[in-house]
């Protein structure tokens, strides 16, 4: 009997997944709800189907996998991680994140419940459906509060509310959505969280065979309230040894509470007067350009590491690249109001030492809507610090010289 071909299952596509699988020489079964002709030609077996129908998708994956030996299920898409875990489980892949752990992260209210039950320091929260429940929640959690959906992503519909009226508006906005970004039924149970005062960080880590390793801590800057759109990231965050240690400890405990194993993770937290307090945990690499920053500063490529872990690899045998800089920053352009965009010539900035990339997603003179989430920002640039200058200094210069404005 001939040996079956080793292959990888890829769910959804965001970044360099094709290249990374191809580099390793594996055929791949690619599942997505819409597949372009180019991607269809590139995948060994393209499978176009409604990924929200998880039963059917798992059944199709199991059927097609009969012709191969599937080494791992690879997925970077936040919304599809639980599906990838279900497929891995159905195929009996031992080195995969469990479906329960994926759901523990994907569903923010479940994350909260588990963190609280394990005594992890997190923001106080209540789940509400009605104005009465919102009112009752504010009796326990003082205003202002954060209102957010349970199963969205990308800071969509997340609002800081200072009054009961604002809470009602934010709640209604969430409850009027039938579906989230990828068409999954929106959970109408709304999270009301304590607003935490303090700088915000994200922690890129990986847990393999029960051992968690913190790879990087990123300092995040968010738009002024009431929105919560991310405007800049800096790796590594400038922290005292004491705070660094406290963050490492809090994140390791949180990942254990959520039963995370065999996964890259992206944990968001605030450093408050009472120490680090976990906001949310995602069983995937960080979004935006955090991977590029982490790769430049640590040599670990989180996209590549995710595949490596999905294929059963460990951190010891993980690929590691040249460290490019001691600091790295990504900065995003946002529209605080709707209007016409104007900015200075970006071309000379591209040659400034330390500028890794500069992408403006809008045209000069284009009319834009106000930025409301991470999905409709106007562009971004990435800086790697040079021996002479920290990345934040170069970023400030680029931002000032480009002077992107909406009027």
């Amino acid at each position, binding site marked *: 009997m001939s040996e079956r071909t080793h292959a990888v299952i890829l769910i959804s596509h965001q970044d360099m997944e094709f290249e990374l699988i191809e580099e390793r020489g594996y055929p791949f079964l690619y599942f997505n709800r819409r*597949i*372009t*002709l180019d991607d*269809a*030609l590139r*995948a*060994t*077996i*393209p*499978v*176009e189907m409604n990924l929200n129908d998880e039963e059917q998708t798992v059944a199709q994956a199991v059927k*097609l996998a009969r012709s191969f030996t599937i080494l791992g299920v690879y997925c970077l898409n936040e919304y599809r991680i639980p599906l990838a875990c279900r497929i891995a489980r159905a195929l009996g892949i031992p080195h995969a994140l469990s479906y329960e752990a994926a759901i523990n992260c994907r569903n923010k209210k479940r994350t909260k419940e588990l963190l609280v039950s394990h005594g992890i320091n997190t923001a106080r929260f209540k789940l509400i459906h009605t104005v009465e429940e919102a009112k009752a929640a504010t009796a326990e959690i003082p205003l202002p509060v954060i209102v957010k959906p349970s199963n969205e992503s990308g800071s969509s519909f997340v609002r800081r509310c200072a009054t009961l009226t604002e809470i009602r508006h934010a709640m209604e906005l969430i409850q009027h959505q039938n579906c989230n970004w990828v068409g999954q039924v929106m959970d109408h149970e709304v999270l009301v969280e304590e607003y935490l005062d303090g700088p915000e960080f994200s922690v890129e880590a990986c847990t393999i065979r029960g051992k968690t390793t913190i790879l990087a801590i990123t300092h995040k800057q968010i738009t002024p309230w009431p929105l919560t759109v991310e405007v800049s990231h800096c790796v590594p965050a400038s922290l005292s040894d004491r705070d660094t240690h406290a963050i490492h400890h809090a994140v390791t405990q949180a990942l254990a509470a959520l039963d995370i194993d065999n996964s890259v993770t992206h944990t968001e937290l605030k450093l408050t007067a009472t120490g680090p307090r976990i906001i949310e945990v995602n069983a995937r690499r960080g979004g935006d350009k955090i991977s590029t920053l982490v790769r430049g500063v640590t040599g670990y490529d989180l996209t590549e590491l995710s595949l490596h872990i999905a294929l059963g690899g460990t951190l010891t045998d993980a690929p590691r690249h040249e460290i490019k800089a001691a600091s790295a920053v990504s900065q995003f352009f946002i529209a605080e109001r709707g209007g016409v965009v104007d900015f200075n010539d970006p071309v000379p900035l591209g040659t400034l030492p330390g500028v890794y990339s500069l992408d403006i997603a809008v045209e000069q003179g284009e009319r834009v809507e106000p930025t409301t989430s991470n999905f409709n920002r106007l562009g971004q640039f990435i800086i790697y610090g040079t021996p002479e200058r920290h990345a934040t200094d170069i970023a400030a210069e680029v931002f000032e010289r480009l002077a992107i404005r909406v009027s």
Partner: protein
Amino acid sequence: MLTLNPTLQEQFAAFSVEASSANSFSEREQLLAMLTASFLLEDADLLRQTVIMAKLNGIINDEIAHVSALVVATCKQKAGCLEKLGMEQHAPKSSCSQTATCL
């Protein structure tokens, strides 16, 4: 969009079902024929869907490329004949039999 009258519509639907379900060809042969049609129609979305279906049924990129090459070769051959026909129409004499063969 143009719609056929109900009788024609029914007959057309029956024809389409019969054409795709008649088992004169294997599924693989049918998909190769559909790929050929998709290339010829230059319909990007139809081609996209057919490529997905074809690969799901074991047809590989080399085979898809070969179908594409056959379509291109056939079109080129036809273009060559049309060019020749054009030249012949401008010539003092033409040969009907040769033209008919080409087309």
